[in-house]
């Protein structure tokens, strides 16, 4: 998967036709093999752009910041990224007319070890669902499968899971990198930082980590697109995807196979209901 040439061409064309103010893509970090996101403002910088299976970071995250606000933006989105973008469009965070979207029919990205990333192995929608231009050959929607880690943890005893997650919450340093790197956490001031939360859980204790991560994952339930930006950002390497995948599983299995961001206009599982939702857990 190498679309470096095409993306350079597209970005160059967009700049020369003055269709965009900024192009968001990837460049080589210059230090190591990794790629880092780059915001390009001028035609002459287009040559920095690359796109390979190391282009991991979900670029829609940058649509949250002042650099792109009310500007015409070109950006590259993979399948999962485009689902996040879809939700951002649905939730009125960006205007479609301001975007030029280069969709990728993604073949999966690799992790630091060079292995295909887990979320790519389980990807349900590798192709960009919203785009102006598509690179690669779409392979279509795939069948949903329960995450391997969730299956493993589900098989464990309750107390084992408790111990496991206690360690997760203990190792959280409450830097909030997870939510800042999440494109769907676009709130101006996170509820976790508001007085009602901080009055009782303002410190960086384990307890507040539990509170913050649980609340965060519930806010993303039925919205998380499994791009794993959060996990990449976490300095403690916490397995944050577990919380999201668990919610995704419950949502998929119980709420008419809801999957986040597949269709524009679909707001997420908590913003609609069905008469036939499960009721048996309620006395």
């Amino acid at each position: 998967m190498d679309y470096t040439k095409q993306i350079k061409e597209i970005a160059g064309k967009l700049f020369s036709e003055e269709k965009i103010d900024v192009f968001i893509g990837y460049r080589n970090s210059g230090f190591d093999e990794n790629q880092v996101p780059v915001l390009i403002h001028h035609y002459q910088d287009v040559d920095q752009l690359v796109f390979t299976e190391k282009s991991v970071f979900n670029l829609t995250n940058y649509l949250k910041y002042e650099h792109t606000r009310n500007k015409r933006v070109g950006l590259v989105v993979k399948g999962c990224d485009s689902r996040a973008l879809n939700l951002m469009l649905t939730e009125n965070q960006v205007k479609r007319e301001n975007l030029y979207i280069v969709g990728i029919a993604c073949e999966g990205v690799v992790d630091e070890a060079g292995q295909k990333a887990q979320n790519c192995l389980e990807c349900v929608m590798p192709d960009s669902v919203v785009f102006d231009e598509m690179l690669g050959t779409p392979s279509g929607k795939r069948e949903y499968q329960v995450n391997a880690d969730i299956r493993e943890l589900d098989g464990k005893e309750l107390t084992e899971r408790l111990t496991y997650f206690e360690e997760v919450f203990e190792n959280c340093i409450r830097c909030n990198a997870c939510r800042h790197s999440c494109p769907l956490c676009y709130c101006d001031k996170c509820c976790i930082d508001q007085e009602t939360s901080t009055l009782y859980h303002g410190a960086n204790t384990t307890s507040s980590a539990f509170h913050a991560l649980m609340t965060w994952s519930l806010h993303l339930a039925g919205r998380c697109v499994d791009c794993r930006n959060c996990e990449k950002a976490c300095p403690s390497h916490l397995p944050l995807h577990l919380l999201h995948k668990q919610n995704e599983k419950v949502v998929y299995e119980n709420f008419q196979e809801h999957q986040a961001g597949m269709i524009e206009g679909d707001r997420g599982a908590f913003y609609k209901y069905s008469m036939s939702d499960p009721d048996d857990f309620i006395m």
Partner: protein
Amino acid sequence: MARVGVFVCFCGANIGDFVDVPAVVEEAKKIKEVKYAIDYKYVCSDPGQQMIRDAIVQQRLTSVVVAACSPRMHEKTFRKALSDAGMNPYLLEVANIREHSSWVHQKNKKAATGKSSDLIRMAVAKSIANEQLHEISVPVTKRALVIGGGIAGIQAALDIADARIPVVLVEKSPSIGGKMAQLDETFPTLDCSQCILTPKMVDVASHPFIELLPYSEVIELDGYVGNYKAKIKRKASYVNFDTCTGCGACWLKCPVKVPNEFNMGIDKRKAIYSPFPQAVPNKPVIDAEHCTMLIKGKCGICAKVCEKGSIDYTMQDEIVEREIGAVVVATGYDLWDPKPYEEYGVGRFKDIINSLEFERMVSANGPTGGVPVRPSDGKVPKNVVFIQCVGSRDEAKGIEYCSKICCMYTAKHTLLLHHKVQDSHAYVFYMDIRAAGKGYEEFVKRAQVETGATYLRGRASKIYKKGDKLMVQGEDAQIGQVVEVEADLVVLATAIYPYKDNPDLARLLGISYDKYGFLSEAHPKLRPVETAKAGIFLAGCTQAPKDIPDSVAQASATAAKVCGLFAGDTMKKDPMIAHVNNEFCTGCQNCVNVCPYQAIVTEEIPLGYGFKELRTVAKINEGVCQGCGSCVAICRSMAIDLAGFTDMQIINEIVAI
């Protein structure tokens, strides 16, 4: 600094016997914010309330906690007491230590005492975060819009107008009257429909407080309760109603013949027509689809014969706007199309008609002069088979619900048939006879005895043609045998189905409808005439199948609701509603999506202080919000809070114990 006063009630022995009240008071005194705590025999009594009022003044209290019975019981009483002492009534919290403690833990005084203390702690903690709230008053435009000019709409309009409230009555067809105008006689008293309806129609036309807009449709409704703005399209009638006298010269001379909807297509009307002789207003309209002048530009006879020169072929649709405060929706019903009943040969056999067609035939002013005839040969039928529940109560082919009126009108039809054709015989296929209503059962009995109609319990399974007769096959469940009846005419009691445009109308009005298209009431039992949207009410068959008395009753109920709404210059509303904090709102509009009352709209505000760029935020309409908190819980940025049940208050309660 918070200064909370705690008043613990013995409630005679109700609390005092099972909770150690003085210990609870001592415990309350330990709470940091509590500056005053006292017990009393009956806090709700006058001396008890006086105690609260005195303490508020003397102790300079900032909020008050009353530990007594359920807030559902005396919250209002104590709020009044606070108010009387010059304190904002919403600074009150009630700790429910009777229903939730003393009465339910009668065998464990220690636990009940401990629990009561905790409940007081929670109430104190909550009260600290209480804010001063003020009743919301929303100005109201005292004018009602009634959509639909059937009996329900007429009744609602008249009742409202009689209370000297202006009404705008919008009717889609050229005349009001609706389905009831098509009926001959009405059950259970067999009084003539026209005789009781037409006076009301005339009243509507002449009522000084009713503005009748016939041949019109509501196309837009903006605003909220008390402050709606409706756009109404007045369809071009091509006749100047101001000058037209309704003499009838035009429709007598008009050469174009069109099936007459009013008579269910049994006879013809003209392209310029008034639907029926007693129409109100009795002015003709030109049917633009069929008028040759309007289609081809040739003819113009009606203009020639009109002495007043009222015909205007250049007339255009006109849109009028009305400011209104409340809406009554009374769009009525349609008949269900029995097409799925192929085994009955619907559409193939001419001599199968529906009940409304039969109704028109037996009507004295009907197309056949009040005598039922076979559509195929015009002969008067002798054996008539009535089939009930065609569509109704049939999950497989039709609809699940019971249409409610068919049993009754079929019984009426057997009577009418008997009166009009003396030597006829009626057969009725029925599933159950549902005759609940004043005089209804008696009426069915009377019909059966008087006409000698044969009631066969069971669904007709098949109709086939034999010569010029129709053979109706069905099972008589009572004898357990298949029966065949030779019929000259078959009358299908097809189900009542919601008016076909109901879903469109519901979307336009912002109210909900069920899977069939019946408009949904706010609560099936307790708020049967209101919709979820404040200020919009339902009357008649638009909500569910109904007979005339029920429709009229519901219409009058809506009138009472409208009059209640308009009783003051402003509406008073509970201030416990949601508020948006613009600083935190991200404009995701999930709340707009979730609100059951469409109380949330969006507005544009500057991006920040000094910015010219705009961003979108949610805005709660105070007049519409009912304070359920759905939006609050789904707001991820916690930009919305619910006054009286704020996040802070609830968290305070949670951590207080």
